[in-house]
């Protein structure tokens, strides 16, 4: 065959292939929609409605894009933030905070937020029941009798009972993971502290003393009732696997608003509405949580309207959405319980001396970091624990402000070394900006800041091993919205999250004392005193309250802020 003929044939093949590829884009797309018919969730295949149609009715399916799918739905095996997002929707938390305005908890108004959790209450103030609809507290505060909600049913129509909760508590202590930790934090020392009174009543006892965070602990979505009737019916609780760990890898057995209908790890999770959910019928009968690792793709799909919700965008992307773009808007709060900190290791190394840590406090250019590195998102933080946690937060405790002369003076007085390593996560570009700003500040008085960029896993491991000089890292001010608990978590000498290795017996004793006191002026005064010491020497320097930002379709409403910053799809409506 001649070259010319070969080329002609080749070109024809190319043309036909191109036409074929182009033609496959034509014609209506078929999609699967879900409806609730007579209490049953049914699926059918219909012709899709193009996403670009204006004034379209609410889509049947809410599409949520995230960098990764969760590793399962086991409430006792911690699985990261996307696991948390799935769990709050399939299980509900046992209790919830009442939804109030931003003003009521002392924070500025957000954008597109329908309400915020009343995290500044004391004891059971501002707490509403989910799994448990009502309760009584004994006079000494150590025993709480809880009543399971009548009409709370799982996806299979089983009424929740006391056994569902009791089994869950026993499981938590047996598996010794997230669930056990949460119960112990609340003052429950073992399964013997939880008793079934009757089919719908549970009694919980805190033997060490009254727990000021008992109810707030139940608001954290890691403790849930589980439909063990269904698990038993399906034969999922066996001698080899009495706690159903295999079953929870693939699905849920919750009483929440949604149920896992399909799970393809690394690809997507499909949730369908619980037809028996006690709060009623949701706007979206189906939710698809899809793994899309690239933030630029997630951004593009929400702007285009093909997806409705996403998180984990970069600051640059969020900034582009501030004024709205395409179908997407940026919603959120400027002030929440998520903080950016600089941890300085206080046991060994350059910051073991108090003066060196204090110099760091004065060297940080807080306003520049907020304006330049964080593009104005969030706010500069002036307190150890976010102010939204109520009157127990000492708003005057922070001694530092940007003062490079004072920083230089303290650094010299402390005879601090001429260099130190500043570690940060390589994946977060704004943290490199912060590192560079700090390096510039310290260079003014002759100190060399060695920028130590590391993978996320390395940063986490080094934090746990206290193998760092200083590190830029974010933290949540504890999902249990209590100052005493936050102080315990990040500063107590026995806490595993005391990354800065600051071991102060006196302060730890005061924190312990506060965790066995009922809410009141005495506890408030003690915590105020503790926060002064924490900020002066504690090794964890608050820099920014990073706020909360989510990219969502402009027709979506019903966003509420919960202490875990996870969205409940049931809340959402379409307008």
């Amino acid at each position, binding site marked *: 065959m*001649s*070259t010319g*003929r*070969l*080329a002609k044939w*080749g070109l024809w*093949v190319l043309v036909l292939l191109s036409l074929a*590829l182009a033609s*496959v*884009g034509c*014609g209506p*797309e*078929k*999609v*699967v*929609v879900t409806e609730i018919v007579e209490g049953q969730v049914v699926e059918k*295949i219909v012709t*899709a409605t193009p996403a670009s149609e204006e004034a379209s009715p609410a889509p049947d*399916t809410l*599409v949520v*894009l995230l960098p*990764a799918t969760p*590793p*399962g739905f*086991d409430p006792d095996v*911690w699985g*990261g933030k996307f696991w948390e997002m799935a769990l709050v929707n399939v299980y509900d938390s046992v209790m919830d905070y009442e939804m109030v305005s931003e003003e009521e908890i002392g924070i500025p108004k957000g954008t597109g937020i329908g309400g915020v959790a009343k995290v500044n209450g004391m004891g059971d103030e501002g707490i509403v029941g989910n799994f448990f609809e009502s309760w009584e507290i004994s006079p000494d505060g150590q025993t709480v009798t809880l009543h399971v909600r009548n009409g709370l049913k799982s996806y299979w129509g089983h009424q929740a009972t006391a056994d569902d909760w009791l089994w869950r508590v026993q499981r938590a202590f047996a598996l*010794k993971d997230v669930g056990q*930790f949460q119960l112990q934090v609340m003052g429950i020392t073992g399964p013997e502290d939880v008793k079934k009174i009757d089919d719908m009543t549970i009694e919980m006892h805190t033997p060490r003393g009254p727990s000021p965070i008992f109810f707030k602990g139940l608001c954290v979505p890691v403790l849930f009732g589980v439909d063990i009737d269904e698990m038993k019916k399906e034969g999922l609780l066996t001698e080899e696997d009495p706690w159903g760990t295999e079953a929870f*890898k693939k699905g849920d057995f919750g009483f929440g608003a949604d149920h896992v209908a399909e799970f*393809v*790890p*690394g*690809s*997507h999770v499909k949730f369908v509405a619980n037809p028996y959910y006690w709060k009623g019928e949701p706007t979206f009968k189906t939710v*698809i949580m*899809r*793994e*899309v*690792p*690239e933030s*630029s*793709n997630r951004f*593009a*799909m929400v*702007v*285009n309207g*093909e*997806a409705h919700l996403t998180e984990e965008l970069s600051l640059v992307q969020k900034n582009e959405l501030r004024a709205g773009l395409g179908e997407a808007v940026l919603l959120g709060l400027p002030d929440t319980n998520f903080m950016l900190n600089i941890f300085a290791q206080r046991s060994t190394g350059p910051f073991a001396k108090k003066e060196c840590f204090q110099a760091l406090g004065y060297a940080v250019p807080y306003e520049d970091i907020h304006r330049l590195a964080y593009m104005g998102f969030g706010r500069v933080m002036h307190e150890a624990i976010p102010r939204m946690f109520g009157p127990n937060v000492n708003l005057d405790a922070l001694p530092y402000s940007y003062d490079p002369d004072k920083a230089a003076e303290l650094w010299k007085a402390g005879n601090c070394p001429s260099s130190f390593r500043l570690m940060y996560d390589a994946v977060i570009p704004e943290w490199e900006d912060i590192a560079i700003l700090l390096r510039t500040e310290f260079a003014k008085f002759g100190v060399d800041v060695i920028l130590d960029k590391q*993978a*996320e*896993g*390395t940063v*986490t*491991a080094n*934090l*746990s091993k206290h193998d760092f000089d200083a590190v830029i890292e974010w933290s949540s001010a504890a999902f249990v919205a209590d100052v005493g608990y936050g102080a315990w*978590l990040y500063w107590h000498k026995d806490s*595993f*999250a005391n990354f800065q290795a600051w071991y102060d017996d006196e302060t730890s004793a005061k924190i312990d004392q506060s965790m066995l006191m009922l809410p009141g002026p005495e506890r408030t005064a003690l915590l105020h005193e503790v926060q002064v010491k924490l900020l002066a020497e504690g090794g964890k320097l608050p820099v920014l309250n990073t706020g909360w930002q989510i990219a969502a379709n402009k027709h979506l409403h019903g966003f509420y802020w919960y202490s875990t910053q996870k969205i409940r799809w049931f809340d959402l409506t379409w307008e």
Partner: protein
Amino acid sequence: MDRPARAVLTRIALVIPQLIGLTALVFLLVRLLPGDPVISRLGGVAPQESIDNLRHKLGLDLPIHVQYLNYMKGLLHGDLGDSWRTAQPVMEDIKMRLPATLELLILGMGIAVFLGLLVGVISAGKPGGLVDRLTILYALLAGSMPEFYIGLILVFVFYVTLGVAPAPAGRLGIAMLPPPRLTGMYLIDSVMAGQWDTFRDALRHLALPVITLSFWQAGAIMKMTRSTMLQIDESDFINYARLVGVKPSIMRRYTLRNALPPIISLAITIFAILIGAVVLIEQVFSWGGLGQYSVQSVISADYEAVTGFLMIAASISLLLFIVMDVLYALIDPRVKL
């Protein structure tokens, strides 16, 4: 023993020591990765008791040589361990994802080879001509850009700006059901099931990643085809054929046939390399194949998944190189095995 049988057996005999070396290397390399997989799995705020329990459960508190022996024992039974990220056996994860990667690779390479050969032949037919100059320019461009960058540009142009391509969110539309699984490759499975809507949707979603892959690879094949064809064109036997008046079309056929061995070698080598290189393309297009699985596993310090992926990828590459060696020896009698 005849030459083909000897070629195959000689090569296969080398596979076992190669595989043993491979497992040791992969096992050690993964354990050199920064980060602590137990802390990554539990999060930075896990109690020490939980960390110790999990470390013991995973056998990570054992000496490294014991860990390796345990791993090899599992490997002999086809057990690559469990991924903590997917909560599934790694072997199951790989079985589920491998077809997605292969579908992408086979189509991408097929188009790259076809285009590379076609344009390379045309280009070699008239050196210095317009097609030849454009080919050189294209090969230069394709080779100088990383593949994921090409992918992102295509997404930006065809999806974001022009709106003609589907969203880069996997192999099918968000609400589309996959076809009944036979091979795991959606094009084949949808045809077998008679689901033409699914076939069309799968083809639409394949377009951009396949173009990315083939654009990137066709350049190298084009260059190799062109230079080999030109080289053989100057060889003695072609000159003789020209002198005795053999028709140009027949001469071209002889030239191409003789140029094929190095081109085939290059194509197979590229295919073997692509098993690893496709990871970033899959990441850009959320493909759900082995590549995306491996990236997410590295980020999460999921030891078992990373080791499993490396083992499979390296084994496939090894197999391809063996095939290449054998083919080469069979085609060219001068090559000794």
